[in-house]
C-alpha cells in the first residue's frame, strides 16, 4: 500500500514565523502535490513537483514556496506565516506511469497561525 505521511497533524505558529510542512511518500512516486483545504472551497493546489528539484506553481502559490531535494520528500514552506494561512494542508503523490491517475493523500496538517 502507498503510504504518504506528514510531519505533524496539528501545528500552531505565530504570525511572521517561518513554517515548514514536511511530506514523505514511500512508493517512489515522481509527482508530489501540496493542497490547502478550506470549508466551502474544497482543495486548491498550491504547488506541485514532477520530480526531484522540479516544481511548478499551482493555483494559489502566493506566500508559499516548496523544496524537493529527494524523491520521497516534498516540503512546503511558509516564509512568513500570516493568519490567512490558517488552514488544513494536504500532501499527495502519484506515479505518472499509473494509468488510473489516482493521487494518494497524506493525513493532513491542520495549521493555526495566531
Amino acid at each position: 500500500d502507498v503510504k504518504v505521511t506528514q510531519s505533524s497533524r496539528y501545528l500552531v505558529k505565530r504570525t511572521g514565523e517561518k513554517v515548514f510542512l514536511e511530506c514523505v511518500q514511500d512508493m517512489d512516486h515522481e509527482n508530489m502535490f501540496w493542497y490547502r483545504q478550506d470549508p466551502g472551497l474544497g482543495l486548491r493546489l498550491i504547488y506541485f513537483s514532477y520530480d526531484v528539484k522540479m516544481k511548478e506553481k499551482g493555483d494559489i502559490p502566493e506566500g508559499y514556496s516548496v523544496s524537493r531535494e529527494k524523491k520521497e520528500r516534498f516540503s512546503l514552506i511558509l516564509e512568513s506565516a500570516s493568519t490567512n494561512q490558517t488552514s488544513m494542508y494536504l500532501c499527495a503523490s502519484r506515479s505518472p506511469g499509473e494509468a488510473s491517475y489516482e493521487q494518494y493523500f497524506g493525513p493532513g496538517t491542520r495549521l493555526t497561525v495566531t
Partner: protein
Amino acid sequence: AQTVTQSQPEMSVQEAETVTLSCTYDTSENNYYLFWYKQPPSRQMILVIRQEAYKQQNATENRFSVNFQKAAKSFSLKISDSQLGDTAMYFCAFIHFQGAQKLVFGQGTRLTINP
C-alpha cells in the same frame, strides 16, 4: 478554465437508505477522468470511484456507483444501502490528460449517515 461544482454543501440520510451526491464540471477537453474522493472525519482522503470519460458505461464499486452524463457534464455518486462508515466529506474531482494533469476539486459535500 476547468471547474467542478458540488451544489450540496451538506446531506443527511438514515442508515440503509440510498443517497445521491451531485457534481457538475466544465471543460473543453474530450479526454479526462473523473473521481469521487472520500475524507472520513480526522482520517485520510481515499479514492472511492473513478470514471474515464471515453467509457460510456457507468463505473461501479460495490455499493458505490456513478451516473456519468458526458453531454450534460454531470457526474453524480450514488451510495446504496448507506452505512455509518460512509459518513465523510465527499469531493468530486476532475483531471484531464493534457498539460500538467492537475486534479481540480469541487467544494465538497458533507454526508452524515444517521443510525
